């Protein structure tokens, strides 16, 4: 029998049961929809994690100072006003010397200060660092320049502001050349640096900080000359002093394959210098590996859920086709008497199944594309529609339908023609 006539016939036959065909299609539509939606959400989450990690730099090792609680038994220091902890200049020096394949070491002091321009005042993170911070972080300059070597050498009172801070604080003015007061000290703005989305290491204890750049960058040298390493912090119990030499240290390694070895050296040095774990080591490369592993698990879980929904759709198809076959027993008998081979009968019912599943699949893909968009619009969760997601959803649904359609079709074909003819 000719395929195009087969299709016409199948459409005509399905037309007899419009409601039933529609309901069957719903099963497939939901199945495909959920597969596409789940794959899109999964892919979105995956991309987001990858981006965040990539932003931290796969060749970087991030060291952070961590405040550890004072030990209870330690009477002398339990109510101590001065908390000393974290990474030290000695650490930085030894790491520079002992970590193999190191190309850059970027020290940072990160402090929360009031900054003020004219009457506008707000609190933000001030990052005291070195000129190569910009390169290590893949920052983009928006205006002016970043901190320069000369600024370090002379301890110049200059600063670079994040683009968001520039917008808020200098609204209506060109920030370049203006004087910014940082906790009472005057700094001249020399540049505006781009959003965090373009590459910014987190400045809080979280792994990363989303959003626009609201930081102020000043030369480390300048800060040390003005303030030193002591920092007063006001908390509930009154004011305490903290002495932290370096809040963060980013070590940049020449190649990714040398990172693991470098991390070992870093740990060795820090273990030797620190009695307590008052630091943390974050290796973006390891995070990438972990993310890949997480993603694999994620995919397996989502895949299973999607597979179940498709199988449910497939069972729906089988159910409907079995009902259709038994209702049309007599038709099958007639067709057999008129010369239909078993193969023709199998093909007839399989074609009907295929048309149901393909049209259900297409509709499912359309809705499946809309759902991730709706999710993104309503919740802000990132979703990514990829061609493989569409292809997988579609092919799997059609395959499932055919697999589940074969049994009813074969059952129809194997009927005894005479019995079928007698069927009322």
């Amino acid at each position: 029998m000719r395929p195009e006539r087969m299709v016409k016939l199948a459409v005509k036959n399905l037309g007899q049961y419009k409601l039933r065909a529609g309901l069957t299609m719903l099963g497939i539509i939901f199945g495909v929809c959920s597969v596409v939606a789940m794959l899109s959400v999964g892919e979105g989450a995956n991309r987001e994690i990858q981006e965040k990690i990539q932003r931290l730099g796969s060749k970087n090792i991030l060291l952070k100072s961590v405040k550890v609680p004072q030990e209870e038994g330690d009477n002398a220091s339990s109510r101590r006003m001065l908390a000393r902890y974290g990474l030290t200049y000695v650490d930085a020096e030894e790491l520079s010397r002992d970590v193999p394949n190191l190309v850059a070491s970027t020290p940072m002091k990160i402090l929360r200060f009031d900054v003020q321009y004219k009457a506008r005042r707000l609190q933000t993170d001030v990052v005291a660092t070195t000129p190569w911070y910009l390169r290590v972080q893949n920052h983009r300059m928006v205006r002016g320049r970043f901190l320069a070597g000369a600024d370090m050498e002379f301890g110049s009172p200059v600063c670079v502001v994040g683009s968001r801070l520039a917008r808020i604080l200098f609204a209506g003015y060109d920030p370049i050349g203006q004087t910014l007061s940082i906790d009472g000290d005057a700094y001249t703005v020399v540049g505006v640096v781009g959003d965090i989305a373009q590459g910014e290491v987190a400045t809080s204890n979280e792994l990363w900080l989303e959003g626009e750049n609201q930081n102020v960058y000043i030369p480390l040298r300048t800060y040390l000359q003005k303030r030193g390493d002591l920092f007063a912090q006001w908390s509930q119990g009154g004011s305490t002093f903290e002495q932290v030499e370096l809040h963060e240290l980013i070590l940049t390694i020449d190649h990714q394959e040398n990172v693991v070895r470098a991390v070992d050296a870093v740990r060795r040095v820090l273990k030797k210098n620190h009695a307590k774990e008052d630091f943390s080591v974050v290796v973006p490369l390891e995070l990438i590996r972990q993310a890949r592993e997480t993603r694999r698990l994620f995919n397996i879980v989502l895949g299973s859920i999607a597979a179940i929904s498709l199988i449910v759709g497939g069972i729906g198809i089988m159910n409907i086709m079995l009902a259709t076959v038994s209702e049309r027993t007599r038709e099958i008998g007639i067709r057999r008497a008129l010369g239909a081979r078993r193969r023709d009968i199998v093909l007839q019912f399989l074609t009907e199944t295929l048309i149901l599943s393909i049209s259900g699949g297409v509709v499912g893909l359309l809705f499946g594309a809309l759902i991730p968009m709706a999710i993104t619009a309503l919740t802000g969760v990132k979703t990514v529609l990829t061609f493989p997601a569409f292809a997988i959803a579609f092919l799997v649904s059609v395959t499932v339908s055919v697999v589940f359609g074969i049994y009813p079709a074969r059952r129809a074909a194997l009927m005894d023609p005479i019995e079928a003819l007698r069927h009322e």
Partner: protein
Amino acid sequence: MSEPIVELRRAVKEYVLGALRVTALRGIDLRIGAGEYAVVMGASGSGKSTLLNLLGCLDHLSSGDYLLGGQSVANLSDAELSEIRSRRIGFIFQSYNLIPQLNVLENIEVPLFYQGVHEAEARDRAQALAARMGLSDRLRHKPMELSGGQQQRVAIARSLVCDPILMLADEPTGNLDSKTGHEILELIDELHAEGKTIVMVTHDDDIAHRAQRVVRFLDGQIVSNERNGAARP
């Protein structure tokens, strides 16, 4: 008698229902020549339909042999039997057996469908036959919208569309009033006059005289097989 189209030799058909065996045909010998018009008569349950199903290659003999057009069909596969039904046999049923969702033309085309005949050609042939059966103004009607007589005409057109060598009719007038039945019988006479070989099952003795041969069945056996002298030449 001319070259036989149908030849049964010691044909036995047994139905097995669990432990029960029903012998529907008990060793029948029958020859029907090309162009012959034979009527099969007998009480209900005597094996007439069983015979027709076998002649139509819808069923296998339990033993014995069946030659259709000189060729034995005993060892043919299901696909080969389907092929024979498609090209050489025309069935007409008591209850018409049209496909409800198809219109008149589409119903007539069904056998061509399975021979892979082109759509346009199939349409032409179906249209010509529908016209001959007086159905030209009913081509797009569904079977439900036709009278019994019209439905049987569609069925006859369908049985003719492949130009079969053997036409089998199982009580074709059984569901029709006598006037309409008469019209159908006239049509069958016409086909016979054109040279078709016809085997028809009927209860009605009045019909029997139209045929050239009357075969009488009783309990799965042929009790008489006579050429009908009174039949037309």
